[in-house]
């Protein structure tokens, strides 16, 4: 019964999406205000229908209704409640439903918060989102229906992969998908602008908060995925340059470029065509990520069951959505008149450099990820492209990016004086140099470069704030006034740039990590990274749907006890699978990390890691996303304030 209701809601959502695609676009073309005004209501309707469908699937899973095939295949009556809920999106069918649901949320959000948009633009944006939605909903209904029934229902479900039974992974897909799907809104804005044939500063101002929101989610999603790999998989690594990871990095790189180039559209009415292309490209990368993961076309550790037929359907969907938008781009982009001119050394120039470097990195990641496929199909050569390639090629592009990141924000618009800008950053350069020299003396060239870059970014971000508030150069009261008067977007930029600095410091720290694999009997101890690791005991403990084996390790330094680590090994009898439960003790500056392996002759094989600065990798990503969120809270972005921009735009035209 629940299944039928959900199925009906899904079909209803699909019908509403079709109407949402047709009516507002037609209305905008005919300048029919009534049809255009219907757009938000249709978007809300689609959201309600899909929320009903998703709710039905969750409910079927919570009450363990095994007559629904999807629940029978992926759930189990003994599974803890949290994972019965979150497990609904841990499989292919459920995740497509989640994807469509988030897309509906985006449409409804444009309907709800787009009150100050021109009616035609809002109608077109919602229409384009509806068009994209109906593609995904058709895919859900025809190729991957989560509500298919099995009769008779099995007595119990097959359970899910134990590695997915983890709180980090439970919330990873919704956050990551919010990032991917969120870029559908800038995409829809770009397509709407192409249909209308015009882009102005107001368009830039409307697009930026949506792009920024999606970017924040994507940043958090990637960081959460990387963190999960670090603590759950137990290899001690955090980024493997796996095709699936790369697929999430591509839209992040172009999305970062988009967030920056939209500023140029907003402030200077330049880079319009490029920004439209970035908006289309970012969503195209989001979509093709889905394709690559679900078609099994790439060699990845992480993948859904391979199914070429499913792949063909998604490919057709991609061809329709991306192809039609690019055809529109080829036909209409020349109508987007380019605006303000600027000197190479200027804020705009720095943002262009940012775009060049980010897109080059993206091009390298795309090439490296696709090359094995290309080589096999075209050249008949079987080869692999792995972490050593990406590390070697991406690093030279990141260095100038980091160097420019601190300089860009202190340059002025239109034309800037590079010497004067660098003078303002002299102490950031000095600190970076000292940090670099100190690190080079201790740990060699690469970590030194990374630590110097990190210091340059963090101090550079501070320097920019200090410059704007004139700390120590004006009376303290005036400084406070200036802080209060500072735009939140400026704080946001500084915070986001400093966040990358923190992440880079974490990566540099991890390059100095040490580890050891030891076989210890209870009572024996070993020495690693200045700590004494003593295995105290090996015990059995029951778990909800697994059997647990716990090693208790005490850590001490110079005979002073520091911590107790208790790595576990979980045996899931249902799946006949063993999963390690890593023990991590952090103090914010280093992680002590232990994994329990097999046991032989009374001795347990333990892998012990000492990971300096490891938490900074994800802390930095959180700070970056926080910077984005702070920027979003800027009053002017929230209001959109097209009215305020009218006067200067008119003045520019008059010149």
């Amino acid at each position, binding site marked *: 019964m629940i299944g039928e209701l959900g199925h009906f809601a899904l079909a209803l959502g699909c019908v509403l999406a079709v109407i949402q695609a047709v009516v507002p676009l037609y209305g905008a073309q005919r300048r029919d205000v009534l049809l255009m005004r219907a757009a938000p209501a249709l978007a809300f309707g689609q959201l309600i229908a899909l929320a009903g469908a998703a709710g039905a699937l969750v409910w079927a899973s919570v009450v363990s209704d095994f007559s629904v095939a999807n629940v029978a295949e992926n759930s189990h009556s003994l599974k803890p409640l949290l994972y019965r809920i979150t497990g609904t999106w841990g499989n292919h069918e459920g995740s497509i439903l989640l994807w469509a649901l988030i897309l509906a949320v985006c449409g409804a959000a444009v309907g709800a918060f787009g009150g100050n948009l021109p009616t035609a633009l809002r109608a077109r944006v919602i229409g384009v989102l509806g068009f994209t939605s109906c593609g995904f909903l058709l895919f859900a209904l025809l190729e991957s229906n989560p509500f298919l029934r099995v009769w008779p229902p099995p007595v119990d479900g097959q359970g899910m992969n134990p590695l997915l039974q983890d709180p980090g992974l439970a919330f990873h897909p919704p956050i990551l998908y919010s990032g991917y799907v969120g870029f559908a809104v800038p995409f829809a804005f770009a397509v709407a602008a192409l249909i209308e044939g015009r882009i102005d500063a107001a368009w830039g101002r409307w697009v930026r908060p949506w792009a920024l929101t999606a970017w924040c989610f994507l940043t958090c999603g990637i960081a959460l995925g990387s963190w999960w790999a670090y603590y759950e998989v137990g290899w001690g690594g955090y980024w493997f340059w796996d095709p699936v990871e790369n697929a999430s990095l591509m839209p992040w790189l172009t999305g970062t470029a988009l967030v920056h180039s939209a500023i140029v559209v907003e402030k200077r009415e330049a880079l319009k065509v490029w920004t439209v292309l970035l908006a289309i490209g970012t969503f195209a990368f989001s979509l093709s990520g889905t394709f690559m993961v679900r078609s099994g076309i790439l060699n*990845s550790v992480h993948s859904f069951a391979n199914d070429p037929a499913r792949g063909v359907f998604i490919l057709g969907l991609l061809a329709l959505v991306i192809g039609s938008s690019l055809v529109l781009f080829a036909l209409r982009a020349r109508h987007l008149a380019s605006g303000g001119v600027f000197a190479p050394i200027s804020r705009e120039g720095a943002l262009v450099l940012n775009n060049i470097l980010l897109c*080059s990195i993206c091009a390298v990641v795309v090439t490296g990820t696709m*090359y094995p496929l290309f*080589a096999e199909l075209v050249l008949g050569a079987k080869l692999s492209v792995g972490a050593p390639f990406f590390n070697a*090629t991406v690093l030279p592009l990141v260095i100038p990016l980091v160097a420019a990141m601190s300089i860009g924000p202190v340059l002025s618009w239109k034309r800037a004086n590079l010497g004067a800008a660098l003078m303002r950053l002299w102490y950031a350069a000095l600190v970076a140099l000292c940090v670099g020299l100190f690190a080079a003396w201790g740990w060699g060239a690469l970590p030194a470069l990374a630590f110097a870059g990190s210091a340059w970014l963090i101090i550079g971000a501070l320097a920019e704030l200090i410059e704007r508030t004139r700390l120590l150069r004006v009376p303290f009261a005036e400084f406070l006034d200036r802080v209060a008067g500072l735009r939140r977007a400026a704080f946001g930029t500084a915070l986001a740039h400093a966040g990358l600095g923190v992440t880079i410091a974490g990566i540099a720290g991890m390059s100095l990590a040490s580890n050891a694999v030891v*076989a210890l009997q209870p009572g024996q101890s070993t020495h690693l990274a200045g700590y004494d690791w003593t295995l105290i005991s090996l015990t059995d403990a029951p778990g909800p749907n697994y059997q647990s084996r716990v090693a208790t390790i005490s850590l001490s330094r110079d005979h002073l006890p520091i911590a107790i680590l208790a790595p576990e090994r979980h045996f899931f009898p249902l799946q006949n699978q063993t999963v390690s439960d890593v023990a991590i003790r952090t103090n914010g500056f280093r992680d002590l990390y232990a994994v*329990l392996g097999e046991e032989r002759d009374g001795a347990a094989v*333990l892998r012990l890691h000492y990971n300096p600065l490891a938490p900074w990798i994800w802390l930095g990503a959180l700070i970056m996303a926080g910077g984005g969120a702070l920027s979003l809270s800027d009053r002017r972005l929230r209001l959109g304030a097209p009215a305020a921009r009218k006067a200067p735009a008119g003045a520019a035209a008059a010149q």
Partner: protein
Amino acid sequence: MSRLLLVLLLLAAGPALAISDPREALPDPAQEQRAEALGSQLRCLVCQNESIEDSGADLARDLRGIVRQRIAAGDSDAQVIAWMTSRYGEFVRLRPHFDASTALLWASPVLALLLAGALVLRRRGAAPPPPLSAHEQQELDRLMREDV
């Protein structure tokens, strides 16, 4: 998206938890370091996307052992890699060899930068927009008057 269904392949690799035998490390730290650096450039054949240093698979453990044996026997890094590719092909190298078939791959950062640079230069070199035609000028004047 993400790492949703990691590990069909870990299933295939059995319950090994990427933990290997401590006895396999070479006694000489310099040699062990070389072995780790080499191992992280060689792909685990069973698990497809990990290096043999990271993998818990049985075969990866054997290959790790062989890398160490050969290093202890005095092989150079190139010799160890050649030993591997003669058995498993170019596929085992996570850092592909530079030759005609990978030239495009290795040139990709430079090509991307050149392309982007050319686009920017083209834009900068583009002629300024042509002056307004008489009709456009009229239209502009009309609009300006309306605005006032």
